């Protein structure tokens, strides 16, 4: 048997290589474009240069937009993490009549067309006189990423061993203390995971941001979009490459956090730990 599988291993490599290439090709093109000469985005490039990277420093609107994006995403994620964890707590640990319906309702922003939500927010936030600012965006985005938190943290919470909470209660801990010393620490990894996914998701959200935001509080995707409408130079590609670098850094940072916290991986896997304890 092992011999037979070895014979066809090359096929696996070819397929995997093809898929990898398909996934990476657009990124490679962006990187190439970002270092191409000339004022128009052209492929293949006429020559290679780093001058567009230098010029990016002058484009202050991109830095501002980047900071706006970070602030909006961070705010939305923080809001969604708190609300999502509390919602999961209610639905999973204190099930009540209609908790299933509530869960489905909380998950619904996932399937709702974002542009519809955007229009709805525009109307609502205009009435509240907060439309146009980042605060409005944070409120809107939090609702959109809320389902990620609810589903990831919720399923992790459902896998927690209820006996741990009982043991803590038996040792004298009240419900609040149990939440902070038993439940929450065991959800660390899921919170990190849900937070990262939600952050990445909100970071390049266009639809709602496009409708809600006004000049001055544009986020990076909007700024890029607007820039591309006017200019064809490789600046957009340069910004994209910087974003890719940013995403990779974030990814490695998270990996590092996970690795530096021993046992945290077990918590997500859970199975083995639960049997033992």
């Amino acid at each position, binding site marked *: 048997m092992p011999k037979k599988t070895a014979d066809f291993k090359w096929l696996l490599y070819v397929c995997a290589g093809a898929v990898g290439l398909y996934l990476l090709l657009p990124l490679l093109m962006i990187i190439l474009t970002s270092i191409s000469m000339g004022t128009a985005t052209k492929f293949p490039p006429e020559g290679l240069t780093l001058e567009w990277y230098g010029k990016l420093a002058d484009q202050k609107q991109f830095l501002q937009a980047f900071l706006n994006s970070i602030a909006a995403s961070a705010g939305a994620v923080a809001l969604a993490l708190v609300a999502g964890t509390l919602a999961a707590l209610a639905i999973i640990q204190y099930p009540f009549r209609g908790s299933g319906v509530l869960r489905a309702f909380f998950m619904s922003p996932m399937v709702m067309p974002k542009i519809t939500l955007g229009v709805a927010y525009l109307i609502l936030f205009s009435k509240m006189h907060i439309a146009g600012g980042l605060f409005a965006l944070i409120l809107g985005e939090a609702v959109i990423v809320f389902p990620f938190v609810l589903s990831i943290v919720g399923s992790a919470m459902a896998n927690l*061993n209820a*006996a*741990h909470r*009982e*043991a*803590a*209660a*038996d*040792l*004298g*801990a*009240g419900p609040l*203390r149990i939440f902070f*010393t*038993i439940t929450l*620490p*065991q959800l*660390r990894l899921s919170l990190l995971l849900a937070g990262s996914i939600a952050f990445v998701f909100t970071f390049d959200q266009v639809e709602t941001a496009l409708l809600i935001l006004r000049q001055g509080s544009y986020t990076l995707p909007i700024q890029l979009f607007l820039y591309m409408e006017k200019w064809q130079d490789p600046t957009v590609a340069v910004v994209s490459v910087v974003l890719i670098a940013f995403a990779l850094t974030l990814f490695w940072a998270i990996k590092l956090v996970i690795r530096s916290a*021993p*046992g945290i991986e*077990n*918590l997500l896997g859970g199975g*083995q*730990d*639960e*049997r*033992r*304890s």
Partner: protein
Amino acid sequence: MSDGQGAIAIETRHAVKRYAGNTAVDQVSLQVKRGEFVSLLGPSGCGKTTLLRLLGGLEQPDEGTVLLSGKDVSGIPAYGRNSNMIFQQLALFPHMDVYNNIAYGLKVRKVAKEEIKRRVHEMLELVQLGDYSRRSVSQLSGGQAQRVAIARALINKPEVLLLDEPLSALDMQLRLDMQRELKRIQRDFGGTFIFVTHDQSEAMNMSDRIGVMRGGKLLQYAAPDEIYERPADSFVAKFIGDTNLLQVKVLGTEQDLVSVDCFGSMFQIRQSKGLAPFQAGSLRPLSIRYEYVRLGEAASRSANRFEGRVIESVYGGASIRYTIDIGGRFQLQASALYQRGDIRYNVGDMLHIGFNPEDGLLLNDDSSGKGEAAL
């Protein structure tokens, strides 16, 4: 009584707990003296764990009361009671090391750091895990995890320690070691232990008193020897130790000897003290312990004698268990002590069988059929 120094550590009075129409605990009244080691024994689903959870405050009774040191604690949740529990799955906190697991109960009570440190190390000494304080919980073996769970539960100096089948996941040898260990800890610690188990030998090994439960009811609550020698009914007789249960018809009572008819044979049974006289003509289960059935030579001195044919012989080292067919009418199990050189019967051998009037026990119930079905 309310000063916590009374003789009764924990008590339930007519406690009832129902789940979705099922009565898990049915009118149970149980008193446990301070310093006693009590086992709650019964098949799975008999309500013993629910009763333990009622005692610990993890469940609240629908009716009746729970008293801890004479104080009514019904309605007070687990975190308000000075009793601690060791869970079946131990439930050690996986995100904490051994030290923090054990220290948890003290931290909750906001004990000073130095004091926590001292007491955790005291506890680690008690359970003989001196060097393990910084170990992660996932690195512990079954027996070590067991000890950590015990230390964690005892650190609050509970008035009562509740143990929910904590040994059931261990292999046989470790289990026997932990049984001894638990007894030692109880001696050193001097607390009241209530131990839930479905293993009758575990209960016999460790307990001062055993409560046998079935279908939510506490059938009998007595010292191990009393339960073994004078079981309250056929279920208890069958559950604690091995016994033959035969359906017999009472013929009459003469002085303290009861004559019964058992599938056509006449037997004399000594009337047990304290039981109401048996009505002639009534049907009763007769219990004869395996080891009380005499074989061969020994049977000739017995008051009740008959003959039988060996149809099965199981070698068990120190003893041999025979299944004997009595003239095709009924079968008996007999367990005979065996040492090298003793007579050993083979399948097909005819032999004399007997038992003494005081070794048979007429039980005061007619639920033997139900009892066997439940096993």
